């Protein structure tokens, strides 16, 4: 795992001999001064509400920011342990932070809750220590008071809404707005392009719901580029929710509301799974000294459900102003908003097609078409395959099977959901709906592109090609070769367990018996072929497939060289005779040490195959 970190923030200092240092690698973060490497514009909030934040809220925002920056600045890497079989995933962060309200933050139950919350989110170890803030601040400190204007439309609102600019938050906002609710929308702005899209969507919402008042509070938080090392960003939801809590405090709202569909919330949480939201609620209630609710009313909805909700508001055109891509600002495109390869893009496209709303989500907006675009090996292919596999498998399982196989996931979440008694069942049914939607959309996409798949013109690395078997494009002889391999692999080792065949002829006899017993139709030692001045014949043949099969027996006493020469000669002879050849190599004494090197020259030849049995 990566070396444990000691993270000094806001000018916090520790003597070199302090035991808190241990053997940890020290990093320093600051939002102030010449060495500022974290950029946080509290004035975004201050400006909106024309009052300062309380010291404790300012501390909360900075703590959340530093936690987030430490998360993305510390790569989950290092040597895999235990002979390369234990992934270096977990990290160990010890924070020492200068704060304005050290008496509050240093309480053990506050520190414990903070650590517990983050450990659940990030699977890392957290340890917090707080010191009085030494850095001077330019603003004069004064406590915030809610504006005295009783008619201010956002005073005492029920919830502030976390607004990402994606489909889920749009659905929640559109539904609330369609019921006439005034709304405070809070956004985190890490990159300029995301901000501009959010601003455009808010303008679109205001245009669509002119009778409703929308207050948008975007907050800039970013860091020096040199600090971007880890992409998992599990603590982002902590920063996001802290922003929400601070704005909720500013408008005296009862709480913070996330809108995130249940499939993502349980499996790939961006906003935080149900337990995380519960932990945020406990933490912010402590911080604010009053009850603060943090919830997600979409926990039982699939993404298709969410998209259909947008349609029920009567304004599906809003969809085209949303952006779901995880790579916003990281891929160059003037006109396209979606990369098409990340899980968020895939999920978006599937949901929109499942809801029948593709008119509001142009395929051309995706840099890589989700179904027919080429996916690079590694992350892109894995993401596509895993998404589809997960959905298709879910569609094939009964409710009981889902409840059993994914029991740990559901049991971890259900007690923090609304209606906990019925939550397990609802979560299971949600997953089935999701699986059915994925399968339905995939089936239709395969149908729409059937011609390209049939004639082999579909990109071999697109999602549809990765899904479709393409068996019809595989030569029949290869199918037959699979059968022969299976019979000999299964049958020969137990047959030779007590005594090895004396020679290659005996080996052939044994194999012949196995193949006949498995009703594999082959002709022994036929046909004869003239090559040069010699006649030669294969050990077995299936002439209707132009396939010959050659058995080779590798013994220590004979050496590998002899077999390699024989195979090379056969390749030449049989290749010239327009035959495909399957070489079967019996190597019970493990003479072949470097298997890849041995088989490569054979597999490089068109129409040749080889397998080794031991």
């Amino acid at each position, binding site marked *: 795992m990566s070396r444990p970190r000691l993270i000094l923030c806001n000018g916090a200092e520790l003597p070199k001999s302090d035991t808190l240092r241990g053997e940890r690698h020290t990093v320093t973060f600051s939002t102030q001064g010449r060495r500022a490497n974290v950029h946080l514009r509290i004035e975004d909030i201050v400006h909106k509400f024309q009052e300062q934040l309380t010291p404790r809220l300012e501390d909360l925002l900075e703590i959340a920011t530093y936690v987030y920056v430490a998360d993305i600045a510390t790569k989950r890497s290092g040597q895999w342990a235990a002979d390369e079989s234990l*992934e270096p995933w977990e990290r160990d962060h010890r924070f020492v932070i200068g704060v304005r309200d050290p008496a509050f933050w240093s309480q053990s139950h506050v520190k414990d809750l903070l650590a517990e919350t983050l450990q659940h989110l990030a699977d890392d170890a957290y340890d917090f220590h707080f010191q009085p803030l030494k850095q001077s601040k330019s603003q004069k400190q004064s406590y915030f008071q809610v504006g005295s204007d009783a008619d201010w439309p956002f005073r005492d609102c029920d919830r502030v809404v976390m607004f990402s600019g994606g489909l889920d938050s749009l659905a929640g906002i559109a539904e609330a707005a369609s019921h006439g609710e005034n709304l405070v929308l809070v956004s985190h702005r890490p990159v300029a392009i995301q901000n501009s899209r959010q601003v455009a969507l808010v303008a679109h919402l205001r245009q669509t719901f002119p009778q409703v008042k929308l207050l948008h509070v975007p907050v800039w938080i970013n860091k020096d580029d040199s600090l971007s090392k880890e992409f998992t960003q599990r603590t982002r939801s902590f920063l996001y929710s802290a922003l929400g809590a601070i704005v909720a405090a500013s408008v005296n709202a009862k709480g913070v509301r996330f809108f995130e569909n249940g499939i993502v919330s349980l499996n790939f949480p961006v906003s935080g799974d149900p337990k995380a939201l519960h932990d945020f609620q406990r933490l912010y209630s402590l911080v604010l000294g009053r009850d603060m609710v943090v919830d997600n009313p979409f926990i039982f909805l699939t993404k298709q459900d969410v998209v259909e909700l947008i349609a029920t508001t009567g304004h599906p055109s809003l969809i085209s102003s949303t952006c779901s891509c995880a790579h916003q600002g990281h891929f160059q495109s003037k006109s396209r908003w979606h990369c098409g390869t990340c899980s968020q893009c895939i999920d978006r496209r599937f949901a929109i097609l499942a809801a029948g709303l593709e008119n509001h989500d142009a395929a051309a907006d995706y840099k890589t078409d989700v179904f027919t675009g080429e996916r690079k090996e590694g992350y892109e292919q894995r993401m596509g395959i895993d998404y589809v596999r997960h959905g298709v498998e879910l569609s094939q399982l009964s409710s009981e099977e889902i409840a*059993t196989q994914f029991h740990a996931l559901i049991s971890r979440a259900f007690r923090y959901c609304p209606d906990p008694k019925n939550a397990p069942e609802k979560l299971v049914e949600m997953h089935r709906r999701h699986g059915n939607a994925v399968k339905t959309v995939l089936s239709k996409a395969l149908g729409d592109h059937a011609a390209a798949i049939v004639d082999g013109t579909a990109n071999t690395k697109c999602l549809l090609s990765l899904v479709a078997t393409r068996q019809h494009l595989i030569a029949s002889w290869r199918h037959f070769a699979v059968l022969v391999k299976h019979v000999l692999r299964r049958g020969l080792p137990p047959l030779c367990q007590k005594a090895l065949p004396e020679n290659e002829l005996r080996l052939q006899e044994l194999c012949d018996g196995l193949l006949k017993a498995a009703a594999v139709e082959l002709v022994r030692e036929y046909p004869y072929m003239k090559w040069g001045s010699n006649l030669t014949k294969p050990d077995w043949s299936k002439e209707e497939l132009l396939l010959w099969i050659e058995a080779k027996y590798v013994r220590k006493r004979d050496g590998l060289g002899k077999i390699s020469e024989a195979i090379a000669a056969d390749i030449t002879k049989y290749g010239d005779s327009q035959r495909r050849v399957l070489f079967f190599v019996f190597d019970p004494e493990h003479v072949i040490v470097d298997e890849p090197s041995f088989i490569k020259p054979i597999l490089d030849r068109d129409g040749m195959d080889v397998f080794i049995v031991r």
Partner: protein
Amino acid sequence: MGHQRLGDIPKTQKWTAVVERLGGGGGGTVASATPVASVEKVSAEILFAAEGGLQQSINDRGLQFTFYLLTQIVLTARSDDWTAELAERGIRLHSDASVFDLTAEIQRLVSEDARTHGRVSTISEIAQQAACEAVAHLTKDKAATLFGSGRDELQQAIRKLSTKAGFSDLGQKFFGNFVARYLDFFASKILPGIASEHFRLQDYSNFRQALYMHCHQSAKIVHDFSGEWYSKTEWEKGITLDNSRGFIAVALEKLRAELKKQREAIQ
């Protein structure tokens, strides 16, 4: 499902060779034989490469504590006051608790223990998932339903696991699930990346089902051993976290050796 860990398999010689052997060579691809033959080879290849992690998992506090909790839950189910007995062990179940409540409590306690003794490890996560699935699987046939049963029905179902035979089933299920999920952890990083004309989505899905079945069948090697250990240890000295550690070490070694034997048989 669950928080994905998106890291790649290390690009070292060892793992590159595994990928090559699985991805297409004379040894065959995942789909180049029937699923049973393929899964034996794949699981054997991965186990061979990942043996170090499995051996080290014996020392994982999360795995040990999870298994220990299982023993305590089934043992206490014999008592007349299961609620009190569970409460002594930190497990809180209300009167209409379902099996989900029980497994939620297992996970809560394991997380709390991890915070005290370190942090939640990958092995601990796998162990919790294995335990939850084992409990859910074995109680669903015995409880009225996975959804909506009360604590009394739950106790009756768990009590059936408290016999020697019942704990044998639980041991086999737990260790089979554990090793399957451990191997799947690597398989999920390797298999989607194998670009072969023989390997497609349904092959991968079939493989995963076959993997679980294969590991469960292989775990039969610890079936009787689990019940014998449970019965004997509880009778002689009581089951503790310490002696659970010793049992886990032997059980995992038995299962590892069984899978290794299968690997040698197919080579």
